[in-house]
């Protein structure tokens, strides 16, 4: 099957993006280069096409109860327009996906990883049978763009029928762009302040063009990956899989064990936790790649889940899960990079924290 093209496909190609297949989509991996794009986001603003992320909607009288049944974070406790990060777990307490849930006056939205869309839609549909809930998939009708960086929110001034700067962190609102309905959300996957914007497909190119004209640099999936790594945000398929539980993955803050029952909760409560996610800083500039064995005293104690040269922190950094006894910051470990043991030490996460969060943060 040919890769699906987002509404911005022609726009990417016209801007000489290098296109790669990703989760069934043809996506830009880079334009000018990963390092340049990464630094633009850290110092000013970058624009990402994230239309491949799946956008689901939930209506019906039981939508709140249903989402609280499948989602690890609290849904009933969400305020109007609030956005919450959390996990969908299987009965064994392992991670099916990590998602964002949005609360609207008329129901909810959920943004799901592109690579998990088919699996999650099927799973949700099966679970929804016992509830009065309507599940919709709006992915194909809309585009999703992210504008991220310290200048991102300010550069959108006047573009929407709202002042995005008045939007609190992890809040979203339906508004208008060029007299068409859209959603603006103060969320992101880069460790910077910024917005994620959902618009009808027809408006995607003009929105992208306007954001670039206002100073946002086009960025590909390459920079998105290195930015999220510096910010220590997990990526499904790497830090998160169906072989890891959310507490081992360091996401206990997004799991409300006391909110009432949800799928995977009992298994999670019964689990003995022996490992935890850590950050590693390596000597030299050589990058540890996914799968590189981690050694302590000559014994393999884990494997790298994500690793790269961090373009802004200018260090070789990696994430991995290791035994709890080896997780304290400063613990010396060694990473086997293609046969060469490379000294590394555990560091506290994230590798990068933005200098000053916006005043509007909760």
């Amino acid at each position, binding site marked *: 099957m040919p890769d699906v093209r987002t509404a911005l496909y022609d726009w990417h190609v016209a801007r000489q993006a290098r296109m790669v297949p990703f989760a069934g989509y043809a996506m830009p991996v*880079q334009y000018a280069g*990963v*390092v340049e794009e990464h630094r633009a986001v850290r110092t000013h603003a970058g624009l990402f096409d994230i239309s491949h992320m799946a956008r689901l909607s939930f209506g019906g009288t039981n939508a709140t109860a249903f989402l609280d049944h499948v989602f690890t974070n609290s849904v009933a406790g969400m305020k109007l327009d609030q956005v919450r990060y959390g996990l969908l777990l299987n009965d064994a307490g392992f991670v099916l996906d990590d998602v964002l849930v949005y609360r609207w006056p008329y129901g909810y939205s959920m943004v799901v990883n592109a690579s998990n869309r088919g699996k999650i839609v099927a799973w949700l549909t099966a679970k929804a049978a016992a509830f009065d809930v309507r599940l919709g998939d709006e992915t194909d009708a809309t585009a999703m763009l992210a504008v991220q960086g310290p200048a991102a929110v300010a550069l959108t001034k006047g573009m929407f029928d709202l002042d995005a700067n008045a939007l609190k962190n992890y809040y979203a609102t339906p508004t208008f762009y060029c007299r068409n309905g859209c959603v603006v959300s103060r969320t992101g996957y880069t460790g910077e302040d910024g917005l994620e914007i959902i618009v009808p497909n027809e408006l995607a190119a003009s929105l992208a063009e306007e954001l670039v004209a206002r100073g946002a640099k086009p960025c590909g999936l*390459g920079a998105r990956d290195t930015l999220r790594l510096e910010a220590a945000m997990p990526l499904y398929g790497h830090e998160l899989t169906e072989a890891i539980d959310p507490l081992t993955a360091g996401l206990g803050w997004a799991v409300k064990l006391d909110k009432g029952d949800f799928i995977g909760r009992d298994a999670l409560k019964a689990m003995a936790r022996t490992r935890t996610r850590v950050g590693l800083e390596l000597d030299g*500039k*050589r*990058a540890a790649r996914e799968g590189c064995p981690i050694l302590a005293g000559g014994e393999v104690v884990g494997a790298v889940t994500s690793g*790269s*040269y961090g373009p802004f922190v200018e260090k070789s950094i990696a994430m991995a899960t290791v035994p709890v006894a080896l997780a304290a910051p400063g613990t010396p470990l060694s990473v086997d990079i293609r046969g060469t043991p490379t000294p590394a030490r555990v560091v506290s996460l994230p590798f990068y924290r933005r200098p000053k969060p916006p005043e509007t943060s909760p």
Partner: protein
Amino acid sequence: MSATVNLDELKYATSHEWAAQGGDIVTVGITQYAVDQLTDVTHLQLPKVGTHVSAGVPFGEIESVKAVFDLNAPVSGVVVEVNAPLASEPSPINEDCYGRGWLIRVQLAPGAGTAHLADKAKYDEQLAHDAH
């Protein structure tokens, strides 16, 4: 790109290394195509002087933010010179891969040569083919 290098006189390996022969010494680097694919070279691992290299066999590695690639020796012989400053500052590879960004110089082993490598026309053909 260095003005003194005539790309037509270089020989090319399918794995995107170039070779410039002067007597029994062959200078080795990577092609512009390889540089464009890498974009951001962050790290380079090169052999020491005196290392024996064999045509088609990795002699080092080159790493960008996204990936790591083997550097394959286009010819067989002994490394007689290494562009050592690249290890700490790889940017000449991005800026001038046929000149200041050269990697190693190899003294050809007895009987070794460059006849198995492609000329520019044939290499260009390979690139055109790869693009599809």
